[in-house]
């Protein structure tokens, strides 16, 4: 079962582990909403790269984040937003 559902409010973890992480720095610590649970589960490549928990899978989520949440000085419509897929170990329920 996916850990989150469409409409859940989430916050993105603010951590800086060593290694390659597909979680851009500019979004760490920001808050958003789950827009879509991405159906196919994927290997936790962050753990996999270090040989830990080999083969363990989890969900990615398409997360909607307002531009004004990311950039307090955003120039443009307050309706503008960003979408990004995030692996579930980076998301915290709020």
């Amino acid at each position, binding site marked *: 079962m996916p850990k989150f559902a469409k409409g859940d409010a989430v916050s993105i973890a603010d951590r800086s582990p060593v290694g390659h992480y597909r979680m851009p720095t500019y979004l760490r610590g920001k808050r958003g909403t789950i827009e879509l649970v991405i159906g196919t589960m994927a290997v936790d490549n962050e753990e996999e790269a270090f040989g830990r928990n080999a083969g363990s899978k989890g969900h*990615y989520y398409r997360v909607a984040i307002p531009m004004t949440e990311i950039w307090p000085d955003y120039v443009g419509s307050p309706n503008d937003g960003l979408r990004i897929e995030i692996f579930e170990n980076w998301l915290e329920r709020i």
Partner: protein
Amino acid sequence: MSDVDPHDHHHHDHDHDHAPISSDQPPGYYDIMETAVRELLIERKLFGADEIRRQIEVLDSRTPALGAKVVARAWTDPAFKERLLHNGRAACEELGITFYDDTELIVLENTPQVHNLIVCTLCSCYPRPVLGLPPDWYKLKPYRARAVYEPRAVLAEFGTTIAEEVEIRVSDSTAVVRYLVLPMRPAGTEDMNEEQLADLVTRDAMIGVVPVAYNREAA
């Protein structure tokens, strides 16, 4: 966006001499690493040199014409459009477009209320099975950084002005999903068939930096 050429003019005017194709530079660190890893994988029989060559041929065979065909079909076949928006990959596969990797495809529909733009801030994730290789500007840091910070200014540099009341939605493609923008069908194309429509659809429109244009006089 000083070092990004939005029009991707790549010496298509052959009025100059090309540099000879030769490798007079010693290989760099990553060139050597790539060669070492590739040779090790072949030596261990995890894959063969022929498979690498075949995959390069597959990549080279993909062009924006495939995406244009998908868009034109969606404009002319509402049932297909619905399936495309529901599952982009499965709908493309219906048209014989194979996916050679594990990525999903989400098709983002532009409407009078929402304009979609695609970027990959971490690297150059791009819907290669349907568009081929990305343009150079898509991979450059100024585009990648600015598309998520000031998308309206970036769009303006492509000549695209999006009204203030239209929501800009930037999709940062960084992991398992690739995106294709389904642009709006331009006015005046009601009598055109699928093939004629596909000719109007450009690569940049499917990234979301420009709309699809139709000029009746020029056509």
